Structures are given as structure tokens and as C-alpha cells.
């Protein structure tokens, strides 16, 4: 009854929904990007206000690609830093001695999460000044909670009988953490990382308010000047990015899921 995992066998087992799942979102996103390019960018008149902000066919669209790159950098750096801190923190609050405080820590973090992101940015701008670093710090802070919470939840949800068996067979706490708890909690933990990354795509748009660059720049410039084209380019590209990040991480997550018992 061994599963045949050769390419053709796997291809045969694909269902319609698998195919849709893999193809529909990327194709839709490509169509949207092409539409943005054709309808919003190619029609820009040289020398106009929009050309100044976005570029034009003649001078290229370096401003747009730069903004995408900045945006990506904001998300990547802040999410990576958040993972580096939040995963150990999540593990720590499930350890004996800290367990009693986990409710408190998560409670405080929850309150932090309910403060609007724009307020956080404003507060830290007052402290750290404007620029990329402040935005990174605010995004990092914002991404912490979902990862900490999911890491802790994932570990706490590991069947206590599995832990008891592991302890009873003479595994050390460290071995239990590395060989049992982390692998088994990984899907939940990764779901937290995915949530954090997707939230960050949206929140990073606000980074433009404090001069951190990114796609948000087009929106906050477009609104006071009532330039729909600017607003649309920024807004649509942010949406596309959020959907793609979510989709990519979903695919990664599917790959990483360990075979778990249903019983």
C-alpha cells in the first residue's frame, strides 16, 4: 500500500481543486498587474504630476519597482526580526517557571495588538525619528504577538500523553522540545508567521507616513492631491502583494505539515 510518489502518479492524483488552488491565484494576480501596467501606467503623460511620481513609458517605471522593493524589504526585515524574537519568546512562556506568566505576557501583547498601527508608528516616530528603522521597529513590534501566541499555543496543544511518554522514556527537556514539541507545533507556529507577514504587508503601507518609503508613498501622496491614478497603483499593488505573500506562505505551509495522528 505504499504511495507511489513519482511525478506522473502525483499528477494523476491531482484534483480539480488542487489545480485551481495552484493556478487561479497567480494567474489572477498576473492579470491584475498587467491591467495596472496597461491601464494605469502606460497611459501616463510625460511631464505630468503622475509621471513625476511613478515614471512613464519614456523614462521607465523605476519609482514603482523601487517602491515594491522597499515594501518587500520592510516586510522581510521586520518579519525575520520578529521570528527571531517571537519564537524563542513563545517557547519560553511554555517552559516551567514561566508558564504562570504566559497569560500575563500574552495579555499585555494582546493590548499592544489592539492599538492601531498608525498610532504605534506615531509614537515611535516621536522616539526614534522618521525613516526606515522606525518603521521596521513598529512593524516588528506588530508582528510579535501572532508569532508568540501561535508558538505558545502550538506547543501547549501537543498531546500531553506524547510528552508523558517521551519523559517516561528518558528524554531530557531539551530533547523533548527539539524533537517532539517543536516539530509537532510547527504548523500552528507557521500559521502565526503567515498571519504576521500578511498583516505586515498592509501595515507597511503606513510606513510612508514616516518616510520609510514603500508602496504607501503613492497612496498618501495621491489622497491630498486627489490623484486617483496614484492611489490606485499603490493600493492595488499592496493588495496584490498581500495576496501573493499569503498564497506563497500557504504553499510553503502545505509542504511543511508533518504527518499527524488523527487519534
Amino acid at each position, binding site marked *: 500500500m505504499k504511495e507511489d510518489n513519482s511525478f506522473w502518479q502525483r499528477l494523476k492524483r491531482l484534483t480539480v481543486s488542487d489545480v485551481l488552488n495552484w493556478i487561479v491565484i497567480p494567474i489572477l494576480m498576473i492579470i491584475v498587474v498587467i491591467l495596472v501596467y496597461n491601464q494605469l501606467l502606460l497611459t501616463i503623460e510625460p511631464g505630468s504630476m503622475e509621471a513625476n511620481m511613478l515614471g512613464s513609458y519614456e523614462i521607465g517605471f523605476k519609482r514603482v519597482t523601487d517602491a515594491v522593493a522597499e515594501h518587500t524589504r520592510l516586510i522581510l526585515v521586520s518579519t525575520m526580526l520578529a521570528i527571531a524574537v517571537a519564537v524563542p519568546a513563545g517557547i519560553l512562556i511554555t517552559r516551567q517557571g514561566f508558564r504562570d506568566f504566559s497569560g500575563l505576557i500574552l495579555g499585555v501583547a494582546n493590548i499592544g495588538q489592539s492599538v492601531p498601527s498608525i498610532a504605534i508608528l506615531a509614537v515611535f516616530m516621536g522616539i526614534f525619528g522618521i525613516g526606515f528603522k522606525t518603521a521596521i521597529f513598529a512593524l516588528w513590534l506588530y508582528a510579535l504577538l501572532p508569532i508568540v501566541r501561535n508558538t505558545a499555543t502550538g506547543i501547549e496543544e501537543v498531546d500531553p*500523553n506524547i510528552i508523558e511518554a517521551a519523559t517516561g*522514556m528518558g*528524554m531530557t527537556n531539551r530533547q523533548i522540545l527539539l524533537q517532539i514539541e517543536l516539530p509537532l507545533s510547527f504548523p500552528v507556529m507557521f500559521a502565526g508567521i503567515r498571519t504576521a507577514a500578511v498583516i505586515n504587508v498592509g501595515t507597511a503601507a503606513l510606513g510612508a507616513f514616516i518616510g520609510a518609503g514603500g508602496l504607501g508613498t503613492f497612496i498618501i501622496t495621491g489622497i491630498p492631491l486627489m490623484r486617483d491614478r496614484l492611489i490606485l497603483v499603490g493600493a492595488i499593488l499592496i493588495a496584490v502583494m498581500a495576496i501573493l505573500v499569503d498564497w506563497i506562505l500557504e504553499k510553503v505551509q502545505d509542504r511543511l505539515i508533518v504527518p499527524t495522528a488523527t487519534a
Partner: protein
Amino acid sequence: MIKFENVTKIYPGMSSPAVDNLSFTVPSGEICILVGPSGCGKTTAMKMVNRLIDATEGAIFVLDEQGDMSNVLEMDPIQLRRSIGYIIQQIGLFPHRTILENIGTVPQLLDWDEARIRNRAKELVSMMNMPIDFLERYPHELSGGQRQRIGVARGMAADPLVMLMDEPFGAIDPINRNILQNEFLRLQQEIKKTILFVTHDIDEAIKMGDKICILNTGGLLEQFDSPANILAHPANKFVENFVGADRALKRLNLARVEEVMNSNPPLLQATQDVEQAVGFMVEQEIRFAYVVGADNMLKGYVRRRDLKGKTGWVDEFLEPAATTILLGTSLKDALSEMLVVDYANVCVVDGQNRVYGLIDTNMIHKAVIQSTAASEVEEE
């Protein structure tokens, strides 16, 4: 050998002990059952052996590889646990690891090399009557009974001298539980581990135990003895109630048919002539007799009145036997079988239907009376 010496456990913040001044010894190679109502501290007592719980007072000694009795409280708990097999009701297989990796847990902790772990896992899987290719599967691909067998195999992986089993067959349906119990008893004949086995089921205790330790609420030891003695002579009212009003019947579980059967029964050969057969039955004062062919194979039975005045061979008058009892059947199951078919006596046969003896209800009755008398003598 496992030895409890005045062991008491009081959980922090509790005024009364969970286990109260418990002393008993499990001889090497025997199964000792800890049994009692919930809250009697049986699981607590067991977990103090591998120090998942530490005793408040007293000492627990375990025979180690060097043949010394060492106090578990003076040992490193991690090393101690690796030297003791641990099997729990919920099994706790690691869902993200294959059966091979699950069985190899303790050997891997003890730094065995891969080939040795694989060989040991193969050996254990076949010992459990499971196909070798199960090793590459994951726990969720197995049925409950198969998972529990793997749990037992995992507990035995590093060949520990001592094993702790916490209601290992408790979560399995009655039919499979019975199969697993029998398999395990057969296995124990070979492996001869010293086992502390927790259950709340007195029937399981009687079936599986060489010794039974009956605990009462608050961790009080009510009786520690062999199943036969506990059934014949409950130490007090509590034990009497706990083993149940049918304890005389339960004792039938303790003996096997081969211990009480007539192993030299009056049998007829299929090739005997009828006249001779009638003479034999008259002489033996029996109304019917079982007939065997070559190699003592059971063919059926004949009635004396059917044969009277006839000529020919015995096998022309054969009637098929309605039931037989397999060697190794408990007296309880045998009696039940005999009550169903309403036969005065029944053939005891092996798997190939070869006759080994005859058993009747009188023999069973006598055996029960004798075992009562025997344990009375023992006590004096």
C-alpha cells in the same frame, strides 16, 4: 526485582497521602498488578519507580544490569527512565515519526547505531505478529490495536529488565484486548521481564498477574498475594467486595484445562470392530465414547446403544462431535462451552484436532475445591 520500602507520597498542599507506607516486592520475571478503585494511588505508586513522581518518604529499589539493587531516588532520573520500559494507555506514539523511529526512541537515546536499531525494531515487530513493512509507516496509518502493540514494542526496545505498564490495554475494545492480553502473556513467557502493571479491572488483574497488589483509597495496601490466594482468601471486606461476589467463578480463570483434564481417557479407534468396542464401553461403564483415527485425530463419537448387536467397524456409526476445547483454554471458558452444548464431557484437542484428553464438569468442580484446600494448607 522491584522493591517498595515504606513508600509514602503526599502531594504538596494535600493533608492525606496518595500512597501510604507501601511495602511489597515484585520478584524478577513476574508481573505484579497494582489494582484498586480510582484515587487509590496505583498510578502514583507506579510513576514513583521511574521518578515521574518522587516519593515523599521511603525507598524504591530496582535491580540493575549489574545485579545490584539500587535506590531509584539516588539515581539520575534520565538514566533511570532509559533503563525502564514505559507503556501507557494512551500510547503516546510520536505522530511525526515512523514506527521504526518510534520503536527506536530509547535505543537512539542510548546511542545505538542505526543498523542495530533497525534490527531490533524488525525483531520486535515480528514478535508482535506484525509485518516488517509497518516500520516505514506513520502511527496514524495503524489501527488502535496495532498502535498499542507498537507501544509495547517501543517499551521493550532497549530490552529493559523492568517495565511499567499503565493500563496498557484499557483503551482497546474487549475482543482485541483479550487478544493483546494473551499475546502479551505468551511473550512474557519468553522475555521474563519484571513488570509493574496498573489496572482498575480486577478481571484483567487476575488474568495477567503473578502477584496482585490491591490498594484502597488513600493508597492503603489491602492485600498483596497471588491471584489464587486473593480469590480464595480475601484479606478483608474491602478485598472481598472488590474482587466481587463471583470470586469462586473468577478462580476458574486461573487454571487451564490441561491441568485438570483426564489425559488418559477411554478412546475408541476408528478401525476397531463394533463388538470389541461395546465390550470396552461396558467395561469402562460409559454410554458413549470418542473415536480417534490415525495420529490421535478426533473423528467423532459413538453411542453404546447404537452399537449394541451390530457388526462392522466403529467408524460406520460415527456422530460428529459438537464441540471441542483447545489446549490452553481457561476452565471458565471451558465450562461455559460445556454448558452451551450440554455435554457431560468434551475432548481437549490441539490446533490440529489431535485429542489430548477429556474434561467434564466434575473435574472442574473438583479443581475448584482442591485449589481452595491447597491455599488453606499453604496459609497454615
